[in-house]
């Protein structure tokens, strides 16, 4: 055996064995128990473009979360001042980081400031301003706290969305944070993407608000403490929607964060689905108080600023359960129950990217991709065998090794195979024999100069080495850049390509060479089949 061939063969064989082991989880879906204990479990994942599914990028409107916190502070201050008999004209959130209080007297202002200092230590107090006989006091959220709040909002949103998706039932979803305020959601193989998108994108802020009686929503002035919200009705037969305006108090009496459970139930009388909700102890107490105090008045059940229903309170409701009815179908009721159980998002989210591939297109893509790959491989094998004869077959063997190693490596890394990724592999088939073509042409040149096969081989590999290096490095540069900047399918392409290029370097400079060495090492081979 030629010098140094032993360990090279051993290395190649070791890689073959490794690749095969790593490929097992990919190729067989049901692994025996003993395998799972010690052997690799990672497998090549199919990209969404191949198995169908939805890729969403959501942007959390974090500024809204900060505003929400400040609104709470404003409401809380209002209650506190009322209970302490401190008279004020107005308390409201101003701008994106302040709550302003307008009072009538300087003394009150001082008292309010003291109160704020005690109660809201983390806030900055802005010096009072006097204007037109009024005194303005304001507190501002610190920049650091604002950032924290925003950061938390994204984390909470992520958690909530994960909850919703888990309850909706999607296998192997990917939910991850991206950048400062974005969340990436991948739902492979999802059957009803539109429903999932609706479910995820909903803020699901549930509020119970009293209806302001005696104020017309259409004409006339709306009192400052009230607002107009709409109740949507969809006619189940025609599909036409009507909107009924309703004046409600801005202040919510009870909110969805006091819920412990929400379930779909069927109304026995009308056979209509509705959502039954359960309050926690605080919510139950509040609900009890509110219903007791407002018998024969209407209250509105508001979700994301849409009125679902506005029933009249017939009697005091104790026990902490209530029901939300509306024009529900089985599906919409179950989705509402899911979002209520999973909780509201801390801030609204905006869908900024949605790529959905249907399962049939995905299936079509993978079938055609594999077929094209097979044909590509066959074409190259035939060409090499005809043009370079036995040496061509050695190159073909190298190419097969290449594909095997690449699949093994992708499996080991748990990489994702996308359709462009398949294209990259097919392209690599062409490129992997390229290196051999460069070497073979060099060998032919040396043979023409009258060298023996053995020395022609050595010279061929030697002189082609740098050329092959160069071409691989330049290809790798662009592949690496694609990897860095690409997303989704493009990233899949870059992964396959860069791995392939590196592996190709190994097989072409080492893999095929050792086969030639084995044949030619004795130096008595007169003719080379090239």
């Amino acid at each position, binding site marked *: 055996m030629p010098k140094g061939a032993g360990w090279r063969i051993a290395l190649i064989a070791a890689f073959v064995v490794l690749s095969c082991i790593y490929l097992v989880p990919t190729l067989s879906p049901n692994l025996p128990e003993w395998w799972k204990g010690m052997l690799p479990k990672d497998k090549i994942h199919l990209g969404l473009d191949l198995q169908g599914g939805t890729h969403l990028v959501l942007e959390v409107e974090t500024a809204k979360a900060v505003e929400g916190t400040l609104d709470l502070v404003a409401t809380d201050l209002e209650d506190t001042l009322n209970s302490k008999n401190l008279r004020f004209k107005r308390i409201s959130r101003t701008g994106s980081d302040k709550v302003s209080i307008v009072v009538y007297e300087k003394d009150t202002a001082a008292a309010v400031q003291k109160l704020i200092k005690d109660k809201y230590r983390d806030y900055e107090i802005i010096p009072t301003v006097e204007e037109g006989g009024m005194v303005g006091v304001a507190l501002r959220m610190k920049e650091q706290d604002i950032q924290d709040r925003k950061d938390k909002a994204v984390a909470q949103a992520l958690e909530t969305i994960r909850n919703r998706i888990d309850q909706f039932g999607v296998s192997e979803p990917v939910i991850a944070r991206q950048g400062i305020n974005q969340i990436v959601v991948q739902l492979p193989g999802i059957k009803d993407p539109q429903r999932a998108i609706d479910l995820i994108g909903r803020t699901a802020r549930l509020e119970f608000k009293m209806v302001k009686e005696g104020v017309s929503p259409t004409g006339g002035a709306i009192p400052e403490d009230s607002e107009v919200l709409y109740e949507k009705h969809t006619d189940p037969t025609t599909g036409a929607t009507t909107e009924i305006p309703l004046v409600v108090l801005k202040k919510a009496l009870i909110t969805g964060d006091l819920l412990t459970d929400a379930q779909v139930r069927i109304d026995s009388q009308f056979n209509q689905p509705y959502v039954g909700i359960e309050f926690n102890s605080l919510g139950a107490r509040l609900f009890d108080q509110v219903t007791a105090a407002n018998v024969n008045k209407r209250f509105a059940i508001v979700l994301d600023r849409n009125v679902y229903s506005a029933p009249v309170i017939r009697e005091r409701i104790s026990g902490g359960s209530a029901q939300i009815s509306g024009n529900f179908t089985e599906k919409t009721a179950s989705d509402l129950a899911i979002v209520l159980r999973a909780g509201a998002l801390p801030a609204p989210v905006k869908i900024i990217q949605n790529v959905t591939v249907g399962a049939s297109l995905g299936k079509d893509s993978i079938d*055609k991709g594999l077929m094209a790959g097979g044909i590509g491989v066959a074409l190259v094998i035939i060409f090499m065998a005809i043009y370079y004869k036995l040496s061509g077959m050695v190159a073909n063997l190298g190419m097969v090794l290449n594909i095997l190693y690449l699949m093994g490596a992708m499996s080991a890394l748990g990489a994702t195979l996308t359709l462009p990724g398949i294209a990259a592999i097919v392209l690599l088939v062409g490129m992997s024999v390229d290196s051999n073509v460069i070497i073979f042409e060099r060998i032919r040149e040396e043979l023409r100069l009258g060298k023996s096969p053995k020395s022609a081989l050595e010279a061929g590999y030697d002189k082609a080495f740098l050329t092959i290096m*160069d071409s691989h490095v330049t290809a790798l540069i662009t592949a690496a850049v694609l990897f860095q900047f690409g997303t989704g*399918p493009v990233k899949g392409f870059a992964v396959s390509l860069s791995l392939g290029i590196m592996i190709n370097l190994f097989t072409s400079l080492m893999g095929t060479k050792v086969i030639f060495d084995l044949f030619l090492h004795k130096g008595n081979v007169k003719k080379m089949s090239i």
Partner: protein
Amino acid sequence: MMELLGKTNIDFIGKRNISFVISSIISIIGIIAIIQMARGVANMGIDFTGGTSVQLMFDKPLALADARKALHSGGIAEFELQEVKEGNKLLVKLPRKSALAVGKAAEIVPAAFVKAQPGLKVTVDSTTEIGPSIGEKLRKDTIIAVAISMLGIICYIAWRFDFKFGIGAVVATLHDVLAMFAAYYLTGREFNLLFITAVLTIAGYSLTDTVVVFDRIRENLHKDLKGSLHKIFNTSINEVLSRSIITSLTTFLSAIALFVWGGEVIHDFSFALLVGIVVGVYSSVYVASPVVLLLEQRAMNKGESGAAQPVKA
């Protein structure tokens, strides 16, 4: 020994004036394509412009005019229709400014068809909705990606060879890239992320041929110090011509399999690769080498006149 080409002796460099004209025309069309893209009049994918595209599959053929009518009556005023080559498929593109909220298109668009033609079975093949901020980010990322790859290639070639070869390689690469833009533009294909992926791949790949030629030129320059540059360049190209063609041929074979059998999604992508591979061979012979020759000759003339000057003074 089977040979595609025997020993050739073609005067490639002598034809450089013709090839420069051809290359210039290709490049100019490519540049026009890029300008049209920047102006937003080229066929741009929504990856870059933002907006929505929905690909639908029907159970029976649907005339474009009927599809147009259906969408109009469905309340969708602004859209672009593109026929997909296989099956009864249709791609509906909605511009960013149309009022559809992101996340809704997969509902509204098929609903419009069903409403206009009851009984028609519509399946949503794929939906892509790109918000404006993503489109902008992708555009920016793409420009950065292309710039970094080009820079990386220049640096590497300049380091491995010398600066003149570096320039030759980059000019050739740019030429290949422009040719791909030109081919896409002339055939009215959609410029999207996959196209950019193909461009960057070819930018890396087409250098293989260029490197093969450069290696040989350098080798022959060292061997034959006295011969005319013109002759050395020609001999070098002739010597490596068959391997340039064969290396590209093998890759071309696999790319053509993708083009013919790979399915609609990567059809255009493989077209871009095919163009890039073919142009890559051409440019390593007719662009890269002549540019280096030009630079070498200029450097020599300068060197001679530079050396002569002190004597005169």
